[in-house]
């Protein structure tokens, strides 16, 4: 906060009390110049208390909004508190805070990039331990998205991302609801913001339950595909300053 360019680590967490302390300790060690914000998405365990013990500021959502709503709360916080840089790290230990340096380097060497994503599929030497079904799904999204945005995207579901101020302001205004990562790439493209991918390692989850269980993955795919095609055709992708209020009391139709 006291730096001229305040930086924030944003950790969305839903019932991650088993892993949150370890993740935060790791973040503190690797990224001492970052403030840490945990958004507890209606957790019913002691995630918030653990996060506070770990030295993080904690936003406690009164009920579960889903990952999209939780991350957006973090963007609103970052925007209102003047953060210039936000890096999003999962609370389950999947992402290695040491790799954030790679994201930062990528943004430094590509000054036009507004968002840098850590991709687990860019490097050949690391094998990501995921079931084939999920990998196939990710590759289908990657294929579609690459064509839609006219740029190679290999890991559109990765939540390991670095955002600059422009991306923070955009996503604080509007961020997709349920499974946001894929759609966020499309939103970025619509607003003529740039993204960049860098290879990172990812670990298996340290505990807790993934927001995408295997039984729901078909539902997930259909929903994201719908979101992608709707996103393409959306009349007004995002509310700009001075537009009609997106959440108004008026008629729905």
């Amino acid at each position, binding site marked *: 906060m006291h730096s001229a360019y305040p930086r924030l680590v944003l950790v969305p967490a839903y019932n991650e009390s088993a892993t949150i302390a370890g993740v935060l300790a790791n973040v503190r060690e690797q990224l001492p110049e970052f403030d840490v914000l945990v*958004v507890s998405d209606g957790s019913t365990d002691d995630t918030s208390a653990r996060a506070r013990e770990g030295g993080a*500021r*904690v*936003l*406690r*959502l*009164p*009920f579960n*909004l889903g990952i999209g*709503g939780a991350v*957006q*709360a973090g963007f*609103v*916080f970052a925007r*209102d508190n003047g953060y210039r840089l936000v890096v999003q790290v999962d609370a389950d230990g999947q992402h290695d805070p040491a790799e954030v340096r790679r994201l930062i380097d990528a943004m430094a060497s590509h000054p036009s990039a507004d968002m840098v994503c850590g991709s687990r599929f860019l490097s050949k030497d690391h094998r990501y331990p995921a079931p084939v079904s999920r990998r196939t799904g990710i590759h289908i999204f990657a294929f579609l998205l690459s064509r839609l945005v006219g740029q190679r995207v290999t890991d559109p579901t990765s939540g390991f991302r670095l955002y600059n101020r422009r991306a923070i302001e955009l996503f604080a205004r509007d961020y997709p*609801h349920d499974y946001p990562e894929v759609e966020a790439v499309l939103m970025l493209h619509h607003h003529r913001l740039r993204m960049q991918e860098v290879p990172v390692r990812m670990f298996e989850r340290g505990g807790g339950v993934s927001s995408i269980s295997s039984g729901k993955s078909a539902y997930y795919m259909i929903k994201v595909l719908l979101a992608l095609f709707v996103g393409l055709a959306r009349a007004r992708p995002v509310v700009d300053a001075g537009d009609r209020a*997106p*959440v*108004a*009391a*008026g*008629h*729905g*139709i």
Partner: protein
Amino acid sequence: MFSDRLQLVAILAAIALLLVVLELVRRRRLLERYALLWLASGIVLLALASWRDGLERLAKLVGIYSPPNALFVVALLFVLALLLHFSAAVSRLADQSKVLAQRLAILEDVVREEAERAPAPARAEATVEDLEAITRR
């Protein structure tokens, strides 16, 4: 065929619908903006039920043999429109409650920070003195 009896039932049903909606609005149990579609459906159904000729013409126009079926179709369309309307309304409410939850969480954090920054006892003493000064006046 559209028998007299059926016509009477249809008219009574439409009137009952209109009365119930109006009463709900009057008691402020239903917001006007949600009552409009209901009122529109009640009025149109009442009109078609009482104006036989109109209903028969409508049936012929869209190729329905039996006029009562035309009435059902119109009623069904209104039901679909209402359902869609409510889905949109629910989506909007979900969006609003999301924004509220986010702002509440941020406010809670600000309040917490303030409470930690300002030590409580000093404030409490000042308030007591202020109170005494005020009561002495």
